[in-house]
């Protein structure tokens, strides 16, 4: 919808993967190093690094390099943008479904026409 920020598609694409969603859920509890993230998964560290990079590119994750350690945390703006988009859609659809109820309750010219055809 209007006012959607740049890169919304990238955010949703990043979240479209179950492993990346789990990384996001773990980071929601607090910052972690890439090594700590990888420790929670049965897949290889290079695979985790790739997921972390994708999350970083989408703006969901921010990385700070301290010496040899990569510290990761969630970047709230991207998540808020996605949540805001969902919220606007939900309000739109609720209004649409309410209005549809009103339209269906009215005496319908469509139904009257069909009756005429049946005769």
């Amino acid at each position, binding site marked *: 919808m*209007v006012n959607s*920020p740049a890169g919304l598609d990238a955010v949703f694409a990043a*979240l479209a993967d*179950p*492993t990346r*969603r789990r990384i996001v859920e773990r980071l929601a509890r607090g910052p972690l190093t890439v090594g700590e993230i990888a420790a929670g998964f049965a897949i290889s560290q290079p695979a985790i690094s790739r997921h972390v990079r994708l999350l970083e590119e989408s703006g969901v994750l921010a990385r700070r390099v301290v010496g040899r350690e990569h510290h990761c945390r969630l970047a709230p703006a991207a998540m808020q943008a996605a949540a805001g988009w969902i919220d606007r*859609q939900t309000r739109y659809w609720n209004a649409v479904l309410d209005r549809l109820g009103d339209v*269906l309750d009215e005496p319908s010219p469509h*139904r009257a026409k069909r009756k005429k055809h049946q005769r």
Partner: protein
Amino acid sequence: MSDTQTTTIPAIELRRTYDAPRERVFAAWTQPAIAQRFLGPGDVKAIDVQMDVRVGGSYQITMLSPEMGEMIVSGIYREVRAPERLVMTWRWHEDDPADEHESLLTLEFHDRSGKTELVLRHDQFAALASRNNHEGGWTRILDRLSSVL
């Protein structure tokens, strides 16, 4: 391990029951003259509705909002099964196409003793899958899924 169930941002799912047979509720979504009357709710007005309701056909809805001016949404029908199911992509047009996001809208019309339960699902992830296998694979997946249910 079934982590696929975990979603950070859920799809929107809304259910309403209408006191009308599902043929009529389905018609409301597929006939532009009726759709125009509810797709622009509140002070938003749908001023133009174009629909080519068939698999692969497209639609475009132009709305006018006092706050936001002209808003256009368009998409492609992925599944059309009267009077029970409609699946389409959903994309709000933006000034910069890079800001646009394609999502997937699924409407199910269930007969409830002459009334109709409408299930509206707006999924943010699924449209990406449809883009990745654009040779009709998505429609086939949906067909297969619904035959299992």
